C-alpha cells in the first residue's frame, strides 16, 4: 500500500498518476484461513480490518458473491446518527459514531464524514412527546440531541417551510449536531485497502454455496464457487441474504428481507446544509458533495430480494418532500435504487454468536445499517476474536427472541431506522 499524502500526491501528479498500486489485487483463495467473513460490504470489510489491526488476526479472507461494496453499501442514503431511545441501542450506535470521528485519519482514506447535523421533524403532538423523550434519554446516555422550535429549525435549514397551514406543519425538531453523512463507497474502499495491506484476502465474484460443519456441529469452513475453504471461525455479514446463508448452516432466523428505495436528483449548487428526516411522512433528505439531493423512502411492504421497489413508495416520499420543501418541486430526479434490508421483529440488530460453534453473525440492521458500519465491524471482529460478545453487543443476541428480552426500538421509538 502506498500512503496517501500531500507529498505522494504531488510526486504522482508529476508522473501522471501511474505509480499508484492496486488497492486490492485479484486473489485466489488459500485452502485455509483463521477467519472467513462472508460479505464484503462496509460491515464485513471493516470486521476484517479490525480483526487484523486491532485483534491481531491477519489470516483472514472476505468472500463476496458480487463485487466489493456493491450491495447495501452502495444502496443507502449515508445518514449517520446515534439518537436511539434505549440504553443498549444508544451505546451501540454511539460506539459507531465515535469510531466515525477518527476513521479517515485511521484508514488514511477520506471517508468524507461531515457532521452537518441530523434534524428530525415533529409534525404532531405525538412526535413532540416522543422526540422530547428521546432527547432526555439521549442526554442521560451522553448522546447529544436537542429540541429546536420551528423558527430554530428554519434557521438551521432555510429551505424548510414552517407555515402553520402546511400539509405537514413543522411543530419543532430534534437535532443531533454530531450526526451527518459520509461517502458510502469510501468507507468500504478505505477498509478494504487497509485490510489488504495488513494481509487480508478479498475474494470477489465468489458466492458461498454451503457451510460445512463437523460431526461435533462446529464450523469447518465454507463451500464456495471456487471450492472449499477451511476456517474454524466464520462471520456472516450478508445483510438481506443472511437468512439464505444461515439456512446453509441449518439455522432459521427471525429475519425478513424488504426492498428499501432511495433516489437522487440532478446536481445543484449547495442549497441544503444538513440532513432532515421526517419519520411521520417517511422522507429523508440531504445533499451530497456532488450536489445531488439524496432522498430516502420507507420500505416496500412485501418480502423481496429483487433490489427494486414499487413506484408508489417513491411517489409518496417525493410528495412529502415537496410539501415540506416547496423549493424542490421543480427538481428532476436522476436515478433510484433499491437495497434489500434484513429486518428483525424488534428492529434491532443481531450481533454475536449463533447456536453453531464457530459461526458468528452480524445482521438485522434493517434500514439503518450504514451509520453503524464502524461499530458493527469492530464488535463483530471483537466477538470473533474473543469467542464472546463485547459488553456493548452482548444484549443483541439471537436468544432474545426466545427469552423475550427484546430491544424494541420499533415500538417505542415511532422512528423509522
Amino acid at each position: 500500500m502506498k500512503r496517501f499524502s500531500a507529498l505522494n500526491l504531488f510526486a504522482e501528479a508529476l508522473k501522471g498518476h501511474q505509480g499508484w498500486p492496486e488497492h486490492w489485487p485479484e486473489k485466489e483463495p488459500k485452502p485455509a484461513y483463521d477467519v472467513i467473513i462472508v460479505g464484503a460490504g462496509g460491515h464485513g470489510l471493516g470486521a476484517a480490518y479490525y480483526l487484523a489491526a486491532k485483534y491481531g488476526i491477519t489470516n483472514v479472507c472476505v468472500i463476496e458473491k458480487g463485487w466489493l461494496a456493491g450491495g447495501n453499501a452502495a444502496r443507502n442514503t449515508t445518514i449517520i446518527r446515534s439518537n436511539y431511545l434505549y440504553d443498549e441501542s444508544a451505546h451501540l450506535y454511539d460506539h459507531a459514531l465515535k469510531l466515525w470521528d477518527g476513521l479517515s485519519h485511521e484508514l488514511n482514506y477520506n471517508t468524507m464524514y461531515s457532521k452537518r447535523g441530523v434534524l428530525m421533524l415533529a409534525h404532531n403532538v405525538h412526535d413532540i412527546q416522543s422526540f422530547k423523550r428521546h432527547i432526555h434519554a439521549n442526554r442521560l446516555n451522553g448522546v447529544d440531541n436537542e429540541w429546536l422550535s420551528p423558527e430554530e429549525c428554519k434557521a438551521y435549514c432555510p429551505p424548510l417551510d414552517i407555515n402553520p397551514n402546511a400539509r405537514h406543519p413543522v411543530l419543532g425538531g430534534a437535532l443531533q449536531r454530531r450526526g451527518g453523512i459520509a461517502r458510502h463507497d469510501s468507507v468500504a474502499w478505505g477498509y478494504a485497502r487497509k485490510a489488504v495491506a495488513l494481509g487480508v484476502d478479498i475474494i470477489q465474484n465468489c458466492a458461498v454455496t454451503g457451510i460445512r460443519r463437523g460431526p461435533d456441529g462446529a464450523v469447518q469452513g465454507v463451500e464456495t464457487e471456487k471450492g472449499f475453504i477451511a476456517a474454524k471461525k466464520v462471520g456472516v455479514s450478508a445483510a438481506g441474504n443472511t437468512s439464505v446463508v444461515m439456512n446453509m448452516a441449518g439455522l432459521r432466523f427471525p429475519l425478513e428481507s424488504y426492498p428499501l428505495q432511495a433516489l437522487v436528483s440532478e446536481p445543484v449548487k449547495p442549497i441544503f446544509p444538513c440532513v432532515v428526516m421526517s419519520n411521520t411522512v417517511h422522507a429523508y433528505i440531504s445533499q451530497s458533495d456532488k450536489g445531488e439531493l439524496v432522498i430516502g423512502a420507507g420500505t416496500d411492504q412485501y418480502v423481496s430480494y429483487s433490489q427494486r421497489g414499487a413506484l408508489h413508495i417513491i411517489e409518496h416520499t417525493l410528495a412529502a418532500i415537496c410539501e415540506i420543501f416547496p423549493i424542490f418541486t421543480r427538481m428532476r430526479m436522476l436515478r433510484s435504487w433499491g437495497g434489500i434490508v434484513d429486518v428483525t421483529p424488534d428492529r434491532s440488530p443481531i450481533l454475536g454468536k449463533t447456536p453453531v460453534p464457530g459461526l458468528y453473525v452480524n445482521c438485522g440492521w434493517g434500514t439503518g445499517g450504514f451509520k453503524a458500519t464502524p461499530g458493527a465491524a469492530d464488535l463483530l471482529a471483537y466477538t470473533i476474536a474473543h469467542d464472546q460478545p463485547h459488553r456493548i453487543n452482548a444484549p443483541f443476541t439471537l436468544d432474545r427472541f426466545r427469552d423475550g428480552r427484546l430491544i424494541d426500538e420499533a415500538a417505542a421509538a415511532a422512528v423509522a431506522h
Partner: protein
Amino acid sequence: MILIHCPYCGEDRPEVEFVYGGEAHIARPLDPSGQTDPEWESYLYIRANVRGRHHERWRHTHGCGRFFNAVRDTVTDLFETTYKAGEPRK
C-alpha cells in the same frame, strides 16, 4: 407497481389496493398455555424469508376486504398464483 389477482373478486388489481399480510400458513397454536419458549419463538418470530418461491398472505383492503394466499417469486416479484384462504398450500 405489481398487479395482484384477487381470487375473490376475480380481477387483477394494482398493489395499492392491497396490504401485505406476511408469511402464509403459520398456524396459531391451539394450546397457547402449553407452548414452550422455543415454540413461541418459532411461531412469533422465525420466518422462512425465502429467496425464491414464497407463500404469503395479502388482504384486498380497498376491494373485498378479504385475506387470501399467494405464491410469489421473491427474486423477480412475479406472482405464480393466488388462492383463497383455507385452501391447501400450493
